[in-house]
């Protein structure tokens, strides 16, 4: 059975995009291959590591588990949308300052999960940060520096004001 391709419309980081792809193609692969947004990483490919985390209509999802047809018409946020005009997002700045990134494979997913957490809970405690990032695995940092990065971003005024702007 060969399937016909479908026209899929996506709003990615505020820009409208149209792709013509098989509807079962994974959102992850559409982002990376069709839209050249390679910031979103594939780790396990089975929804267990969180490396491919993006936000879809304000929800955190593993893009490796989303057939692109189910994202048709959706607003998507990827790691490429965090920095604007050459200025790092407060979360990215905090990861840099606190040593929250080492090899970098988990980092885009960590950032998007952290952004999602702060959008709903601008001042999380460490237990809430642990739950918010529980689906994102890191094999370098031992996690503590990542949790500290998120805590640092959440306590900075810059992060707070930006999160309030983005909160749903």
């Amino acid at each position: 059975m060969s399937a016909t391709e479908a026209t899929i419309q996506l709003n990615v980081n505020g820009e409208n995009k149209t792709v013509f792809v098989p509807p079962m193609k994974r959102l992850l692969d559409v982002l990376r291959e069709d839209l050249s947004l390679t910031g979103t990483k594939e780790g396990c490919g089975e929804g267990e590591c969180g490396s491919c985390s993006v936000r879809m209509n304000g929800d955190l999802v593993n893009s490796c588990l989303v057939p692109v047809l189910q994202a048709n018409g959706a607003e998507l946020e990827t790691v490429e949308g965090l920095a604007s005009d050459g200025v790092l997002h407060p979360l990215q700045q905090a990861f840099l300052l606190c040593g929250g990134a080492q090899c970098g494979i988990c980092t885009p997913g960590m950032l998007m999960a952290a952004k999602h957490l702060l959008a709903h809970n601008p001042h999380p405690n460490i237990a809430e940060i642990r739950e918010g990032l529980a689906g994102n695995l890191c094999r370098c940092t031992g996690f503590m520096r990542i949790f500290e990065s998120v805590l640092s971003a959440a306590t900075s005024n810059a992060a707070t004001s930006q999160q309030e702007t983005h909160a749903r």
Partner: protein
Amino acid sequence: MRGNAAQHELIAPGSLPAVLDLLSSAPGEWTPIAGGTELMVAFAAGRLTASRLVSLWGIEELRFITTTPGELVIGGGSTFSDLRACAAVAADFPLLDKSASWIGSIANQTRATVGGNLVNGSPAADSSPALLVYDAEIELISTRGKRRLPYREFHTGYKQNAMTADELLYAVHLPRRFAQHHQYLRKVGTRRAMAISKVALGATTLIKNGAINEIRAAAASLAPFPARLFKTEAVLAGKSPSTGVIQAARQALLAEAQPIDDIRSNAHYRKSVGANLLEEFLLGLNREIETR
């Protein structure tokens, strides 16, 4: 071998009647896919046998949680995030709220649906022990109409269930009569998030005059499908959870359980831990009776 998207058809008719018409027109031809947290894993690994899939994502008729005086009704398309956000679930069915928090992680809870969890029928399904001990009913829908059956009769074998090929899981009905019950649920897995159960055990019981007047116990990963522990329940019915009764109940569970060895655990460990969870539940029950 990786899955090839071009080898699978996926359509999104967009409404419940349109999906039901499609399923009815060619029973068995189309495989429903909701949040994809199971089927997309199989797809990526090249294990997805279904060649034609129909999307249930975004069908609002399946995504609802309503309460009536007697029931909480959860649409099959409700996600576990929906459950966790619903105050009525937490208030009346705390074990279900707890089990929803066990599903993978936030990103999985956002997409995984109650209907998908049950229809997939994993022996380890997180929501199943809670739904079994709350005596849930399943409502199925097709172009022929709706029908209801007790959840305890839904799973019929490993990944087998009572649905026909033209049916969808429309809703789960929960009777709102457990406020006075002592309730217990515990999952044992490798870690708290992103870990499939090695074993999980739930129970609800009503105490009268110091004895177990009504009891339901159910387990995940102790049988080919999530199931009530009827023989263990029978040992406990009418009894006070004394040391002797607890030992008899443990023996009943060990005799009744049929776990397997697999990648996550082995049968011996699962039986031992299942019996320990039952004992933990009964010791807690005993303390509650003594403090009354």
